[in-house]
C-alpha cells in the first residue's frame, strides 16, 4: 500500500482548503501526486481516494476522463506532439515520424531507457508558429525535424 508523503498530503490539504466541497479538490490532488511521481498508479489512486473521502472508483472515474492525468507510467520527459489542424497543415507528421524513428517509440510508448514518452496532444494554441510540440513545460514552435536532435539533447 502506497502512502502519500507528508509533502504531498500538505499540498493536497492546501488545495482542499480552497474549495467549498472537499471532493472538488480531487483533480488538484491527482495533479499533486503526478507532480511528485510522474504518474498516478493504482495504489496512489487508492491513497488519494482515501484522503479525499472518495471511493477509488469515484476518483478513478474522474482521473480516467482527463488525458493529462497519467494512469500508466511515463518516461522522465513527456513529449506532447500537437496533432491538430494547423500543425497538420504545416506538416507535423514529419516531426512525429522523425521522433518515432529516432526514439523507437510510437504514441503512448516510452523509450526503453525511460527517458521519453511520446503522446499526441490537441492544438497547443500557437498555430501561427506551427508545427509545435511541448516537452515537459517547454514549448517549441516553428519546428523542422532537423532541430529535434538538439532539442532532445537538453533532456537527460
Amino acid at each position, binding site marked *: 500500500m502506497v502512502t502519500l508523503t507528508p509533502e504531498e498530503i500538505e499540498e493536497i490539504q492546501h488545495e482542499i482548503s480552497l474549495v467549498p466541497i472537499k471532493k472538488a479538490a480531487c483533480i488538484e490532488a491527482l495533479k499533486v501526486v503526478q507532480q511528485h511521481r510522474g504518474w498516478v498508479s493504482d495504489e496512489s489512486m487508492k491513497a488519494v481516494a482515501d484522503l479525499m473521502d472518495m471511493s477509488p472508483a469515484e476518483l478513478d472515474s474522474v482521473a480516467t*476522463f*482527463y*488525458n*493529462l492525468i497519467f494512469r500508466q507510467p511515463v518516461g522522465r520527459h513527456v513529449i506532447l506532439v500537437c496533432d491538430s*489542424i*494547423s500543425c497538420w497543415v504545416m506538416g507535423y507528421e514529419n516531426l512525429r515520424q522523425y521522433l518515432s524513428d529516432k526514439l523507437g517509440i510510437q504514441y503512448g510508448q516510452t523509450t526503453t531507457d525511460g527517458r521519453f514518452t511520446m503522446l499526441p496532444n*490537441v492544438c497547443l*494554441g500557437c498555430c501561427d508558429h506551427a508545427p509545435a510540440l511541448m516537452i515537459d513545460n517547454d514549448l517549441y514552435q516553428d519546428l523542422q525535424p532537423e532541430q529535434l536532435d538538439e532539442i532532445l539533447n537538453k533532456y537527460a
Partner: protein
Amino acid sequence: METPLTQHIVAGRQPLSLKEYERVGGYESVRKVLKQMTPAEVTDLVKASNLKGRGGAGFGTGMKWSFVPMDVPGPKYLVANADEMEPGTFKDRLLLEGNPHQLIEGMIVAAFAIQANISYVFLRWAYKLAASEIRKAIAEAYEAGYLGENILGSGYTLDMHLHTGVGRYMCGEETALLNALEGKRANPRAKPPFPQVSGLYGRPTIVNNVETLCCLPHIVNKGAEWFKSLSQSEDAGTKIYGISGKVKRPGVWELPMGVTVRELLEEYAGGMKDGLKFRGLLPGGASTDFLVEEHLDVKMDYASVAKVGSRMGTGTMIILDDKTCPVGFVLNLQHFFAQESCGFCTPCREGLPWVEKILRAMERGKGQPEHMKILEFHTQYLGPGNTFCALAPGAMEPLQSALKYFRADFERHITEKRCPWKQ
C-alpha cells in the same frame, strides 16, 4: 486605428507589471465601477456597448449577465474561460501572456456587475507561461488591494483563483468547465437551468471568454459609444483575428470588428505562400463552416459571416491551400472531435468516430460510394439540439461545408481509390 486590447502587448517583452500597468491607466475602470456605479449600471453599460461574447457563440455579454438573479443570498461566481483548445485558435494566449492585468481588471468589473465574490481563471494546462504570469499578476493585484476583502474601501470583496486544467477540449464548454472546476468529469450540463441561475456548485455563475473580459475595462473607461465606434460593422469593438496555415505571415492582429476576410488574408497575412493557391478557410476555429474564394469580401463580424453560412467563431482562421487534401484536412478535424467527445450522448460519441473512420478509409483508398450518404446523414442529424452540447454540431460544420465546396475531391478519393494528394 485603436487597438485597446493589445496596445500594451509587445512581442518578446515581459507583460506590464502592476505598477507599469497602473501608470498607463490600468485599474481605472475598477475605481470607476466601485466608486461611481451600481452593478446594474455596469450591466446596462455593457449592454449598451453591444459587446458580444468572444468565446465563439457571440451572445450579448450584458444580456447574459442580466439573467443572474441579484436578490438571492449566498455565493455567486465569475469564471474566465481561458481553456482555449479549439484547433486553430490562439488569440486568448496573446492576451493571457501579454497583459494578464487587463484580464484581472475585466474580471473585477464583471464580477462586480453580477456581485460575485469568488472568481476563477480556468486555464488550459499547456499555457505554462500564461499560468506563471497570471499567478504573478493575481498576487500583485491582491497586494495592491484590487482583490480580496473590501476592495479600495468600497466594501466589495472578490477573491480570484487560477485553476489549470488537465486536458480535454470539452472543458472549454462553459457547463463542462464548471463540472471540471468542481472536480468532476467534464461532461456538459443540461440547459436550462443556465449557469446564470444554477452554475458552479449550483450557484449563479457567469462564464466569459478571456477576450470578452479584456474588453470591459475599456468600455467602462471610454464608454459604450466609443466601443461601438471602434468597429466597421454592426458588431461593436475590435476583434483579435488570427491566421494560420500556409500563408506568408501567419499571426494575430487586433483590428476593427468587420474587416474583410480578404484584408486579413492579403494585407495582414501577406497572402498565400508562393506557389500555393487559396482554396478555403475556416473563419473562426475548427468548428466553423468553410468559406471559399467567393466569400473573400465578407466582413468578419457575427452577422456577416452567418449570412454566408458560416460562423465567426473565435475569429482565428485556418487556411486550406491547394496542395493540401481537403479530405485529410477534415479527417484531422474529425479525429480531434471524436477524440474530444466526452462520451455522454449517443450521436456524438458514436457518430463522430464513424465519420472519422469513413474519412480515414477514403484517405487510404478504401472509400465506398455509400460513405457519402453516411457522412451526409451525420451532417444532417448531428445538428444543434440533437446532441447534448455544441461539440458535435461544431464538428459537423467543417464537414458539411467541405461536402458542399469540395465534394468532387471526396468523390475522387472514392473513384480513384486513393488520396490524389498522396504520391
